[in-house]
Protein backbone atom coordinates (compact mmCIF):
# COMPACT_ATOMS: atom_id res chain seq x y z
CA UNK A 1 0.00 0.00 0.00
CA UNK A 2 2.92 2.27 0.81
CA UNK A 3 4.29 1.59 -2.66
CA UNK A 4 0.93 2.36 -4.28
CA UNK A 5 0.83 5.78 -2.64
CA UNK A 6 4.52 6.66 -2.67
CA UNK A 7 5.38 5.03 -5.96
CA UNK A 8 3.87 7.47 -8.47
CA UNK A 9 5.61 10.33 -10.25
CA UNK A 10 4.62 13.10 -7.82
CA UNK A 11 6.90 13.55 -4.85
CA UNK A 12 5.27 16.51 -3.16
CA UNK A 13 2.48 16.44 -0.61
CA UNK A 14 -0.85 17.21 -2.26
CA UNK A 15 -0.67 14.93 -5.33
CA UNK A 16 0.64 12.10 -3.18
CA UNK A 17 -2.26 12.60 -0.76
CA UNK A 18 -4.71 12.59 -3.67
CA UNK A 19 -3.31 9.23 -4.70
CA UNK A 20 -3.66 8.07 -1.11
CA UNK A 21 -7.37 9.03 -1.22
CA UNK A 22 -7.79 7.02 -4.43
CA UNK A 23 -6.07 4.00 -2.89
CA UNK A 24 -8.26 4.36 0.20
CA UNK A 25 -11.56 4.28 -1.67
CA UNK A 26 -10.46 1.32 -3.74
CA UNK A 27 -8.97 -0.77 -0.93
CA UNK A 28 -11.71 0.02 1.56
CA UNK A 29 -14.64 0.18 -0.87
CA UNK A 30 -15.59 3.73 0.11
CA UNK A 31 -17.32 6.39 -1.99
CA UNK A 32 -15.07 9.21 -0.84
CA UNK A 33 -11.85 9.98 0.98
CA UNK A 34 -10.60 13.38 2.10
CA UNK A 35 -7.42 14.57 3.80
CA UNK A 36 -7.88 17.83 5.73
CA UNK A 37 -5.34 19.84 7.66
CA UNK A 38 -6.52 21.45 10.85
CA UNK A 39 -5.28 23.32 13.86
CA UNK A 40 -7.19 23.65 17.12
CA UNK A 41 -8.27 27.12 15.93
CA UNK A 42 -9.73 25.67 12.76
CA UNK A 43 -11.52 22.93 14.54
CA UNK A 44 -13.04 25.02 17.30
CA UNK A 45 -13.56 28.34 15.68
CA UNK A 46 -14.39 30.48 12.78
CA UNK A 47 -11.70 29.58 10.33
CA UNK A 48 -12.08 26.58 8.11
CA UNK A 49 -9.39 23.95 7.83
CA UNK A 50 -7.67 23.25 4.58
CA UNK A 51 -8.75 20.36 2.45
CA UNK A 52 -5.47 19.12 1.12
CA UNK A 53 -6.68 16.25 -1.02
CA UNK A 54 -9.89 14.48 -1.94
CA UNK A 55 -10.84 11.51 -4.08
CA UNK A 56 -13.44 13.63 -5.88
CA UNK A 57 -15.11 17.06 -5.83
CA UNK A 58 -18.15 15.40 -4.35
CA UNK A 59 -16.13 14.01 -1.42
CA UNK A 60 -14.52 17.41 -0.95
CA UNK A 61 -17.97 18.96 -0.78
CA UNK A 62 -19.03 16.62 2.02
CA UNK A 63 -16.07 17.65 4.16
CA UNK A 64 -16.65 21.31 3.40
CA UNK A 65 -20.03 20.84 5.07
CA UNK A 66 -18.27 20.30 8.37
CA UNK A 67 -16.41 23.54 8.11
CA UNK A 68 -19.46 25.54 7.12
CA UNK A 69 -21.68 23.95 9.78
CA UNK A 70 -19.03 23.99 12.51
CA UNK A 71 -19.68 20.39 13.53
CA UNK A 72 -19.07 16.87 12.33
CA UNK A 73 -17.10 13.67 12.76
CA UNK A 74 -13.83 15.00 11.29
CA UNK A 75 -13.72 17.92 13.74
CA UNK A 76 -14.57 15.60 16.63
CA UNK A 77 -11.85 13.14 15.66
CA UNK A 78 -9.34 15.97 15.56
CA UNK A 79 -10.41 17.57 18.85
CA UNK A 80 -10.79 14.24 20.67
CA UNK A 81 -7.48 12.88 19.34
CA UNK A 82 -9.06 9.56 18.49
CA UNK A 83 -11.02 8.04 15.61
CA UNK A 84 -14.71 8.81 15.29
CA UNK A 85 -16.34 5.91 13.49
CA UNK A 86 -19.99 6.20 12.58
CA UNK A 87 -21.38 3.11 10.82
CA UNK A 88 -24.80 4.73 10.42
CA UNK A 89 -25.41 8.48 10.40
CA UNK A 90 -29.17 7.88 10.73
CA UNK A 91 -28.41 7.07 14.37
CA UNK A 92 -26.24 10.12 14.98
CA UNK A 93 -28.76 12.99 14.68
CA UNK A 94 -28.33 13.85 18.36
CA UNK A 95 -24.61 14.20 18.04
CA UNK A 96 -24.55 16.38 14.90
CA UNK A 97 -28.01 17.80 14.28
CA UNK A 98 -26.77 20.03 11.47
CA UNK A 99 -24.23 17.80 9.82
CA UNK A 100 -26.20 14.55 9.67
CA UNK A 101 -29.09 15.73 7.45
CA UNK A 102 -26.67 17.58 5.19
CA UNK A 103 -24.38 14.56 4.82
CA UNK A 104 -27.32 12.21 4.22
CA UNK A 105 -28.62 14.60 1.56
CA UNK A 106 -25.18 14.46 -0.05
CA UNK A 107 -25.47 10.66 -0.25
CA UNK A 108 -23.25 9.72 2.71
CA UNK A 109 -24.60 7.24 5.26
CA UNK A 110 -21.47 6.05 7.11
CA UNK A 111 -18.31 8.01 7.90
CA UNK A 112 -14.98 7.02 9.40
CA UNK A 113 -12.70 9.82 10.59
CA UNK A 114 -9.13 9.10 11.66
CA UNK A 115 -6.99 11.85 13.19
CA UNK A 116 -3.49 12.32 11.80
CA UNK A 117 -1.41 12.74 14.93
CA UNK A 118 1.65 11.74 16.86
CA UNK A 119 0.62 12.18 20.47
CA UNK A 120 -0.05 15.87 21.05
CA UNK A 121 1.25 16.80 17.60
CA UNK A 122 -1.91 16.97 15.54
CA UNK A 123 -2.05 17.56 11.82
CA UNK A 124 -5.58 16.92 10.59
CA UNK A 125 -7.93 14.13 9.62
CA UNK A 126 -8.33 11.37 7.07
CA UNK A 127 -12.06 11.06 6.47
CA UNK A 128 -13.73 8.20 4.65
CA UNK A 129 -17.33 8.24 3.40
CA UNK A 130 -19.64 5.42 2.46
CA UNK A 131 -23.09 5.61 0.79
CA UNK A 132 -24.60 2.77 2.87
CA UNK A 133 -24.62 1.82 6.55
CA UNK A 134 -21.44 -0.10 7.06
CA UNK A 135 -19.36 -1.80 9.74
CA UNK A 136 -15.60 -1.91 9.41
CA UNK A 137 -13.91 -5.29 9.66
CA UNK A 138 -10.67 -5.68 11.63
CA UNK A 139 -8.87 -5.74 8.30
CA UNK A 140 -10.57 -2.49 7.22
CA UNK A 141 -9.54 -0.88 10.50
CA UNK A 142 -5.91 -1.96 10.12
CA UNK A 143 -5.88 -0.66 6.53
CA UNK A 144 -7.43 2.68 7.55
CA UNK A 145 -4.93 3.13 10.38
CA UNK A 146 -2.03 2.31 8.08
CA UNK A 147 -3.18 4.79 5.44
CA UNK A 148 -3.64 7.43 8.14
CA UNK A 149 -0.11 6.82 9.38
CA UNK A 150 1.15 7.19 5.82
CA UNK A 151 -0.82 10.42 5.33
CA UNK A 152 0.65 11.76 8.59
CA UNK A 153 4.12 10.97 7.33
CA UNK A 154 3.52 12.82 4.04
CA UNK A 155 2.08 15.87 5.82
CA UNK A 156 4.85 15.85 8.45
CA UNK A 157 7.54 16.19 5.80
CA UNK A 158 5.99 19.44 4.59
CA UNK A 159 6.99 20.86 8.01
CA UNK A 160 10.69 20.23 7.45
CA UNK A 161 12.55 23.53 7.19
CA UNK A 162 13.12 24.88 3.70
CA UNK A 163 16.47 23.87 2.27
CA UNK A 164 16.68 20.70 4.32
CA UNK A 165 16.44 17.40 2.62
CA UNK A 166 12.97 16.03 2.72
CA UNK A 167 13.25 12.47 3.94
CA UNK A 168 11.08 11.05 1.20
CA UNK A 169 9.72 7.63 1.92
CA UNK A 170 11.27 7.14 5.33
CA UNK A 171 8.67 5.45 7.54
CA UNK A 172 7.11 7.78 10.08
CA UNK A 173 8.97 6.73 13.20
CA UNK A 174 11.36 4.05 12.06
CA UNK A 175 11.55 0.62 13.67
CA UNK A 176 9.28 -0.16 16.59
CA UNK A 177 11.86 -0.09 19.35
CA UNK A 178 12.86 3.03 21.28
CA UNK A 179 9.75 4.91 20.29
CA UNK A 180 9.40 6.38 23.76
CA UNK A 181 12.79 8.00 23.35
CA UNK A 182 11.70 9.48 20.04
CA UNK A 183 8.62 11.02 21.67
CA UNK A 184 10.64 12.35 24.63
CA UNK A 185 13.26 13.86 22.31
CA UNK A 186 10.47 15.46 20.30
CA UNK A 187 9.27 17.27 23.46
CA UNK A 188 12.83 18.36 24.22
CA UNK A 189 13.43 19.75 20.73
CA UNK A 190 10.12 21.61 20.88
CA UNK A 191 11.29 23.46 24.00
CA UNK A 192 14.92 23.88 22.96
CA UNK A 193 14.13 25.39 19.56
CA UNK A 194 10.86 27.02 20.49
CA UNK A 195 9.08 25.32 17.59
CA UNK A 196 5.86 23.34 17.40
CA UNK A 197 5.83 19.69 18.37
CA UNK A 198 5.08 18.89 14.73
CA UNK A 199 8.08 20.81 13.48
CA UNK A 200 10.27 19.25 16.16
CA UNK A 201 9.73 15.78 14.73
CA UNK A 202 10.15 17.04 11.16
CA UNK A 203 13.53 18.49 12.19
CA UNK A 204 14.58 15.24 13.84
CA UNK A 205 13.64 13.28 10.74
CA UNK A 206 15.51 15.68 8.48
CA UNK A 207 18.57 15.46 10.73
CA UNK A 208 18.42 11.66 10.77
CA UNK A 209 18.15 11.62 6.99
CA UNK A 210 20.97 14.13 6.41
CA UNK A 211 23.35 12.39 8.82
CA UNK A 212 22.33 8.93 7.61
CA UNK A 213 21.28 7.75 11.08
CA UNK A 214 18.22 5.99 12.44
CA UNK A 215 15.70 8.34 14.01
CA UNK A 216 15.99 6.36 17.27
CA UNK A 217 19.75 7.03 17.37
CA UNK A 218 19.20 10.76 16.84
CA UNK A 219 16.61 10.72 19.64
CA UNK A 220 19.00 8.93 22.01
CA UNK A 221 21.71 11.52 21.25
CA UNK A 222 19.31 14.39 21.88
CA UNK A 223 18.21 12.89 25.21
CA UNK A 224 21.80 12.37 26.28
CA UNK A 225 22.73 15.95 25.30
CA UNK A 226 25.17 14.73 22.64
CA UNK A 227 23.22 16.26 19.77
CA UNK A 228 21.69 19.70 19.67
CA UNK A 229 19.56 20.67 16.68
CA UNK A 230 20.23 24.24 15.49
CA UNK A 231 17.51 26.80 14.97
CA UNK A 232 16.49 27.19 11.34
CA UNK A 233 18.85 29.76 9.80
CA UNK A 234 16.03 31.29 7.75
CA UNK A 235 14.01 31.75 10.92
CA UNK A 236 10.98 30.43 9.09
CA UNK A 237 9.26 27.17 9.85
Amino acid sequence: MRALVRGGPATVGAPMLTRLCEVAIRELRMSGAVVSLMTPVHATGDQSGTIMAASSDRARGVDELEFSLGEGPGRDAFLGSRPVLTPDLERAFDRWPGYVPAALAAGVRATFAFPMLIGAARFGVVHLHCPGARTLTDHDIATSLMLTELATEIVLDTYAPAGDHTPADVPLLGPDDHRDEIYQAQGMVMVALGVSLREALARMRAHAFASNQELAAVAADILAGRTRLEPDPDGAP
Partner: protein
Amino acid sequence: MISTERISDLFVEVADTLVDEFDVIDFLHNLTVHAAGISGADAAGLMLTDQMGRLRFMAASNSNGETLELFQLQNSEGPCLDCFTTGEPVVNADLAHAADRWPTFAPRAIQLGYQSVHAFPMRLREHIIGALNLFGSADALFDAADVRVVQALADVATIALMQERTIRRAEELTEQLQGALTSRVVVEQAKGAVAALRGITTDEAFELLRRRARSSQKRLVDVAQAVLDEG
Protein backbone atom coordinates in the same frame (compact mmCIF):
# COMPACT_ATOMS: atom_id res chain seq x y z
CA MET B 1 -0.28 -17.82 46.78
CA ILE B 2 -2.59 -14.88 46.32
CA SER B 3 -3.66 -12.73 49.25
CA THR B 4 -7.43 -12.21 49.45
CA GLU B 5 -7.01 -9.08 51.51
CA ARG B 6 -4.96 -7.44 48.80
CA ILE B 7 -7.53 -8.48 46.21
CA SER B 8 -10.31 -6.71 48.09
CA ASP B 9 -8.17 -3.58 48.42
CA LEU B 10 -7.48 -3.70 44.72
CA PHE B 11 -11.10 -4.02 43.67
CA VAL B 12 -12.04 -1.08 45.90
CA GLU B 13 -9.38 0.97 44.20
CA VAL B 14 -10.49 -0.09 40.74
CA ALA B 15 -14.08 0.83 41.56
CA ASP B 16 -12.89 4.28 42.72
CA THR B 17 -10.93 4.73 39.53
CA LEU B 18 -13.93 3.99 37.38
CA VAL B 19 -16.17 6.59 38.99
CA ASP B 20 -13.55 9.33 39.04
CA GLU B 21 -12.16 11.08 35.97
CA PHE B 22 -10.40 8.16 34.36
CA ASP B 23 -6.67 8.39 33.77
CA VAL B 24 -5.63 5.51 31.57
CA ILE B 25 -1.87 5.83 32.06
CA ASP B 26 -2.02 6.10 35.84
CA PHE B 27 -4.59 3.32 36.03
CA LEU B 28 -2.54 0.85 34.01
CA HIS B 29 0.58 1.68 35.99
CA ASN B 30 -1.25 1.00 39.28
CA LEU B 31 -2.73 -2.16 37.86
CA THR B 32 0.69 -3.59 37.03
CA VAL B 33 1.93 -2.70 40.52
CA HIS B 34 -1.07 -4.50 42.07
CA ALA B 35 -0.79 -7.47 39.73
CA ALA B 36 2.82 -7.95 40.81
CA GLY B 37 2.02 -7.41 44.51
CA ILE B 38 -0.97 -9.73 44.64
CA SER B 39 0.58 -12.60 42.76
CA GLY B 40 3.93 -12.50 44.54
CA ALA B 41 5.66 -11.76 41.24
CA ASP B 42 8.48 -9.24 41.25
CA ALA B 43 7.60 -7.32 38.13
CA ALA B 44 4.65 -6.88 35.79
CA GLY B 45 4.16 -5.20 32.44
CA LEU B 46 1.31 -4.56 30.06
CA MET B 47 1.05 -4.10 26.29
CA LEU B 48 -1.79 -3.10 23.99
CA THR B 49 -2.29 -3.70 20.28
CA ASP B 50 -2.23 -0.81 17.83
CA GLN B 51 -4.60 -2.82 15.59
CA MET B 52 -2.01 -2.91 12.83
CA GLY B 53 -0.56 -6.16 14.14
CA ARG B 54 1.92 -4.47 16.45
CA LEU B 55 1.96 -4.35 20.23
CA ARG B 56 2.78 -1.18 22.14
CA PHE B 57 4.25 -1.01 25.63
CA MET B 58 1.82 0.75 27.99
CA ALA B 59 2.84 0.28 31.63
CA ALA B 60 5.08 -1.63 34.03
CA SER B 61 5.34 -1.99 37.80
CA ASN B 62 9.05 -1.13 37.80
CA SER B 63 11.98 -0.51 35.46
CA ASN B 64 12.80 -4.23 35.11
CA GLY B 65 9.24 -4.82 33.95
CA GLU B 66 9.61 -2.06 31.39
CA THR B 67 12.98 -3.36 30.22
CA LEU B 68 11.59 -6.85 29.65
CA GLU B 69 8.49 -5.63 27.84
CA LEU B 70 10.51 -3.44 25.49
CA PHE B 71 13.01 -6.25 25.01
CA GLN B 72 10.21 -8.51 23.80
CA LEU B 73 9.02 -5.86 21.34
CA GLN B 74 12.51 -5.21 20.00
CA ASN B 75 13.16 -8.88 19.41
CA SER B 76 9.62 -9.82 18.35
CA GLU B 77 9.73 -12.69 20.80
CA GLY B 78 8.50 -13.53 24.28
CA PRO B 79 5.57 -14.64 26.42
CA CYS B 80 3.55 -11.44 25.95
CA LEU B 81 3.74 -11.77 22.17
CA ASP B 82 2.85 -15.49 22.28
CA CYS B 83 -0.09 -14.77 24.52
CA PHE B 84 -1.31 -11.99 22.22
CA THR B 85 -0.96 -14.20 19.14
CA THR B 86 -2.64 -17.31 20.55
CA GLY B 87 -5.08 -15.68 22.99
CA GLU B 88 -4.06 -18.32 25.53
CA PRO B 89 -2.37 -17.63 28.86
CA VAL B 90 1.24 -18.61 29.45
CA VAL B 91 1.48 -19.95 33.01
CA ASN B 92 4.51 -20.93 35.11
CA ALA B 93 6.92 -20.95 32.20
CA ASP B 94 10.30 -21.94 33.59
CA LEU B 95 12.89 -19.59 32.11
CA ALA B 96 15.74 -22.04 32.71
CA HIS B 97 14.06 -24.40 30.24
CA ALA B 98 12.74 -21.83 27.78
CA ALA B 99 15.80 -21.18 25.63
CA ASP B 100 14.21 -23.04 22.69
CA ARG B 101 10.99 -21.13 22.93
CA TRP B 102 12.50 -17.67 23.54
CA PRO B 103 16.20 -17.77 22.63
CA THR B 104 16.85 -14.06 23.25
CA PHE B 105 14.19 -13.25 25.84
CA ALA B 106 14.78 -16.14 28.29
CA PRO B 107 18.50 -15.44 28.93
CA ARG B 108 17.79 -11.71 29.34
CA ALA B 109 15.04 -12.33 31.91
CA ILE B 110 17.30 -14.75 33.82
CA GLN B 111 20.05 -12.15 33.74
CA LEU B 112 17.68 -9.68 35.43
CA GLY B 113 17.07 -12.22 38.19
CA TYR B 114 13.81 -13.90 37.16
CA GLN B 115 13.04 -17.60 37.03
CA SER B 116 9.44 -17.82 35.93
CA VAL B 117 7.15 -15.89 33.62
CA HIS B 118 3.41 -15.70 33.04
CA ALA B 119 1.28 -13.87 30.47
CA PHE B 120 -2.47 -13.32 30.41
CA PRO B 121 -4.52 -12.16 27.42
CA MET B 122 -6.70 -9.05 27.60
CA ARG B 123 -9.82 -10.28 25.85
CA LEU B 124 -12.90 -8.53 24.64
CA ARG B 125 -15.04 -11.24 23.09
CA GLU B 126 -13.28 -12.31 19.90
CA HIS B 127 -10.69 -9.53 20.13
CA ILE B 128 -7.39 -9.75 21.96
CA ILE B 129 -6.43 -6.17 22.78
CA GLY B 130 -3.22 -6.82 24.69
CA ALA B 131 -1.53 -8.89 27.37
CA LEU B 132 -0.42 -8.69 30.99
CA ASN B 133 3.01 -10.13 31.82
CA LEU B 134 4.33 -11.22 35.22
CA PHE B 135 7.90 -12.07 36.10
CA GLY B 136 8.83 -13.93 39.28
CA SER B 137 11.01 -16.32 41.16
CA ALA B 138 10.64 -20.11 41.13
CA ASP B 139 8.69 -20.18 44.39
CA ALA B 140 6.12 -17.76 42.99
CA LEU B 141 4.44 -20.40 40.82
CA PHE B 142 0.69 -20.00 40.26
CA ASP B 143 -1.94 -22.62 41.13
CA ALA B 144 -5.33 -22.81 39.41
CA ALA B 145 -6.90 -20.28 41.79
CA ASP B 146 -4.07 -17.81 41.21
CA VAL B 147 -4.52 -18.14 37.47
CA ARG B 148 -8.21 -17.29 37.77
CA VAL B 149 -7.48 -14.20 39.87
CA VAL B 150 -4.76 -12.84 37.61
CA GLN B 151 -6.89 -13.46 34.54
CA ALA B 152 -9.70 -11.57 36.29
CA LEU B 153 -7.28 -8.71 36.79
CA ALA B 154 -6.45 -8.67 33.08
CA ASP B 155 -10.21 -8.67 32.39
CA VAL B 156 -10.68 -5.73 34.75
CA ALA B 157 -7.98 -3.84 32.87
CA THR B 158 -9.82 -4.54 29.62
CA ILE B 159 -13.15 -3.38 30.99
CA ALA B 160 -11.60 -0.24 32.45
CA LEU B 161 -9.93 0.62 29.16
CA MET B 162 -13.13 0.17 27.24
CA GLN B 163 -14.81 2.94 29.16
CA GLU B 164 -18.08 2.71 27.37
CA ARG B 165 -19.38 -0.22 29.34
CA THR B 166 -21.36 -1.77 26.56
CA ILE B 167 -19.05 -1.93 23.64
CA ARG B 168 -20.96 -3.65 20.90
CA ARG B 169 -19.08 -2.63 17.84
CA ALA B 170 -15.51 -3.03 16.65
CA GLU B 171 -15.61 0.71 15.89
CA GLU B 172 -15.99 1.61 19.57
CA LEU B 173 -13.10 -0.62 20.46
CA THR B 174 -10.94 1.20 17.92
CA GLU B 175 -11.93 4.61 19.30
CA GLN B 176 -10.99 3.63 22.86
CA LEU B 177 -7.81 1.75 22.03
CA GLN B 178 -6.41 4.44 19.75
CA GLY B 179 -7.23 7.05 22.39
CA ALA B 180 -5.34 5.08 25.05
CA LEU B 181 -2.31 4.65 22.79
CA THR B 182 -2.27 8.37 22.00
CA SER B 183 -2.47 9.27 25.72
CA ARG B 184 0.72 7.42 26.35
CA VAL B 185 2.57 9.21 23.54
CA VAL B 186 1.37 12.60 24.84
CA VAL B 187 2.81 11.77 28.29
CA GLU B 188 6.17 10.76 26.77
CA GLN B 189 6.35 14.01 24.76
CA ALA B 190 5.53 16.05 27.88
CA LYS B 191 8.27 14.23 29.83
CA GLY B 192 10.80 15.44 27.23
CA ALA B 193 9.44 18.98 27.22
CA VAL B 194 9.49 19.26 31.03
CA ALA B 195 12.97 17.74 31.20
CA ALA B 196 14.24 20.38 28.74
CA LEU B 197 12.42 23.25 30.49
CA ARG B 198 13.71 22.34 33.95
CA GLY B 199 17.04 20.78 33.13
CA ILE B 200 16.04 17.49 34.80
CA THR B 201 15.90 13.85 33.69
CA THR B 202 12.84 12.43 31.96
CA ASP B 203 12.18 10.20 35.00
CA GLU B 204 12.18 13.26 37.25
CA ALA B 205 9.95 15.01 34.74
CA PHE B 206 7.49 12.11 34.92
CA GLU B 207 7.35 12.33 38.73
CA LEU B 208 6.77 16.06 38.47
CA LEU B 209 3.92 15.57 36.01
CA ARG B 210 2.35 12.91 38.23
CA ARG B 211 2.58 15.12 41.30
CA ARG B 212 1.06 18.01 39.41
CA ALA B 213 -1.80 15.79 38.24
CA ARG B 214 -2.46 14.53 41.77
CA SER B 215 -2.33 17.92 43.44
CA SER B 216 -4.59 19.53 40.85
CA GLN B 217 -6.84 16.43 40.63
CA LYS B 218 -6.45 16.36 36.88
CA ARG B 219 -5.71 13.47 34.60
CA LEU B 220 -2.05 12.91 33.84
CA VAL B 221 -2.75 13.10 30.12
CA ASP B 222 -4.48 16.48 30.50
CA VAL B 223 -1.58 17.88 32.52
CA ALA B 224 0.79 16.56 29.86
CA GLN B 225 -1.30 18.05 27.07
CA ALA B 226 -1.34 21.44 28.85
CA VAL B 227 2.46 21.44 29.10
CA LEU B 228 2.73 20.83 25.36
CA ASP B 229 0.11 23.46 24.49
CA GLU B 230 1.99 26.11 26.51
CA GLY B 231 5.31 25.18 24.96
